[in-house]
């Protein structure tokens, strides 16, 4: 099962590079998406391990599911995106291969049971997604790609320093970086080195996750990349980096150093929330707006983990719901870009009138992202708030409410202007095909269902939260 997940994209990529066909490109994406989704479902009940280096456990299965669901939606969306006749065949093939390899590296990182291997796959995610960010080849994409690669390579280097420091703390008769070995023999790692290694790993993987203050690459890369890629970056890549942080945090917590991790998580979490709030108040570009919202939501995840207890469960729910809502928004932003040919909020008014379907999806996804009931983010934010309150962080809870309201105002204003404002510029009148709406509709239906906390979801979240 795991073997097929990892080998299929490589075989498909090689085949596509040889075949060079429009139809095969699209077909390959669909095939891998179906394979991914079915494997995830099969792996849910039956944990499996492959070559000892890859395995599914209670923690990573949720992350694998999110990658599967998002990729399935994006594969459907790409059926339209890749049938654009103005795109050269070469570009079309490179895009498809890049996307396959990107999902491959995300899957590899998610399934890694070894810290070193996880790091290697994290590096691979940067390398495989950089050409996708650069896809349009303009001056601004060049700049975004440069920042993306450079900042992430510094981040990943620091994470590697963390890994070396961690391994330095291991006693003479214990030298393993398998997560399960580390958890089982946590007493064999000197706490001193754990304490030093953790900040490096947090900053290193946190760069990839988009936590403030090391988020600088995120708005540029997300806004300049093609919309399906932005959706995958925001919905899957950030989570995968978060998984790495969770794995390491679990180790530190097992070593009875939970106070440090909790404090650091709360700091970076609130800082990210603050950065998100400040930039969302004055955004002019709707794709950058979504990117800043990702920083904000990663901050909320960090706060959930920092609060502990109920907060961890809520963070898992938030992760699932944020990924689907944000992917839905990013995919819709692709439709809007197609209609208005501009990323500026001022240029893209009157969406409900121009394209009611995109307009409603845009508004509903926004409601989901902001946590209007019955969407699940309402519950996740509420539970995180409760967790903060229970831990006695009353001031932080208050700050959380204030920042969330500021963000609601900042984003809500832009979303309303775009949906309801009057059309001011001549816009493309072609009708968009149904394919560019279905993924978002499916995501929204899933979110709507998840808001009622069906037993299947609860069980999955319980498992994940207790595995942390």
């Amino acid at each position: 099962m795991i073997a097929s997940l990892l080998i299929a994209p490589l075989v498909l990529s090689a085949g596509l590079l040889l075949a060079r066909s429009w139809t095969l490109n699209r077909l390959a994406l669909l095939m891998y998406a179906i394979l991914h989704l079915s494997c995830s479902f099969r792996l849910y009940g039956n944990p499996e391990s492959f070559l000892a280096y890859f395995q599914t456990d209670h923690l990573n299965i949720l992350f694998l599911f999110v990658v599967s669901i998002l990729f399935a939606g994006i594969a459907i969306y790409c059926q339209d995106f890749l049938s654009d006749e103005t795109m050269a065949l070469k570009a079309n093939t490179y895009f498809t291969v890049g996307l396959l390899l990107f999902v491959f590296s995300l899957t590899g990182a998610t399934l890694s049971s070894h810290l070193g291997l996880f790091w290697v796959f994290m590096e691979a995610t940067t390398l495989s997604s950089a050409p996708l960010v650069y896809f349009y080849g303009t001056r601004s994409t060049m700049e975004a790609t440069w920042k993306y690669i450079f900042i992430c390579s510094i981040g990943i280097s620091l994470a590697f320093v963390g890994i070396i420091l961690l391994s330095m703390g291991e006693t003479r008769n214990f030298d393993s970086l398998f997560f399960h070995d580390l958890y089982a023999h946590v007493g064999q790692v000197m706490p001193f080195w754990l304490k030093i290694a953790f900040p490096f790993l947090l900053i290193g993987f946190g760069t990839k996750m988009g936590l403030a203050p090391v988020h600088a690459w995120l708005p540029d890369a997300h806004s300049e990349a093609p919309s399906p890629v932005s959706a995958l970056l925001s919905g899957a890549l950030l989570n995968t980096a978060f998984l790495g942080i969770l794995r390491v945090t679990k180790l530190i917590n097992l070593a009875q150093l939970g106070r440090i991790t909790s404090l650091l998580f709360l700091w970076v979490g609130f800082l990210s929330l603050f950065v998100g709030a400040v930039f969302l108040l004055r955004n002019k570009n709707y794709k950058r707006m979504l990117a800043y919202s990702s920083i904000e939501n990663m901050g909320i995840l960090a706060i959930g983990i920092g609060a502990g207890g109920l907060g961890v469960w809520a963070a898992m729910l938030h992760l699932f719901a944020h990924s689907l809502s944000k992917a839905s928004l990013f995919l819709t932003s692709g439709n809007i870009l197609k209609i208005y040919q501009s990323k500026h909020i001022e240029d893209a008014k009157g969406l409900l009138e121009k394209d009611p379907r995109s307009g409603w999806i845009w508004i509903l996804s926004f409601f989901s992202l902001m946590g209007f009931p019955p969407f699940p983010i309402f519950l996740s934010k509420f539970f995180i708030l409760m967790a903060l309150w229970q831990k006695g962080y009353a001031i932080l809870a208050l700050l959380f409410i204030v920042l969330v309201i500021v963000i609601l105002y900042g984003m809500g204003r832009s979303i309303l202007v775009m949906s309801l404002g009057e059309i001011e510029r001549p816009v493309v009148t072609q009708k968009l095909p149904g394919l560019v709406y279905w993924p978002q509709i499916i995501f929204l239906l899933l979110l709507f269902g998840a808001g009622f906390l069906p037993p299947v979801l609860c069980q999955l979240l319980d498992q994940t939260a207790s595995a942390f």
Partner: protein
Amino acid sequence: MINLIIILFGLSLLYISAISRLEGYIKALAFQGFLLTILVLNSFGHLNPWNFAFLILETLGFKAIIIPQFLMRTIRENEISRETEPYISHFYSLLFTSLIFALGFFLAYWAREHVAGLGHLHFGISISTIVFGLFIILTRKKLITHTMGFMIVENGIFLLSLSKVHEMPMIVNTGVLLDIFLVVLLLGIFINKIESTIENPDVDRLTYLKD
């Protein structure tokens, strides 16, 4: 012997912080690659032959010869001016470098009871090199100097990982993967100039995307 090599490595950082010509940086980087080769040679016998050969190839071939050559060529062909264009004067640059060394040695001193089988000098200089690389990135203007700063960070990481070469050679080998980023960044600069997508590879010009 080892300590002498490590001290020379530290001196190369002071040299970089004080000069203003890009060629000087490249020479210092090649020199660092050469020193790392000697350190790898020193671990002969602890590593299996293939791994040993790989690390020699990486340090001597890649770090000491290929990359410096390629950097020289990039500077020539892209007609990059030879000035490093720092944001701060040489005096402050040297001052900060000294502070970074102090920080590195302080950390080494602080960790002295927990460091098993690793020299204080080795640990201190490694950490200083990593921080110094970041310092170069922050205080120099050109993209190519940033890439060199990244290479210094990477050399520091390599130096640090060499302390685990006996117990976990895997760590040293994994760290070599960071070179892929270096190559991507360098090729980015090299190709970018040819296609002239960004008119001038200075960070000052990277201001098109902002809020």
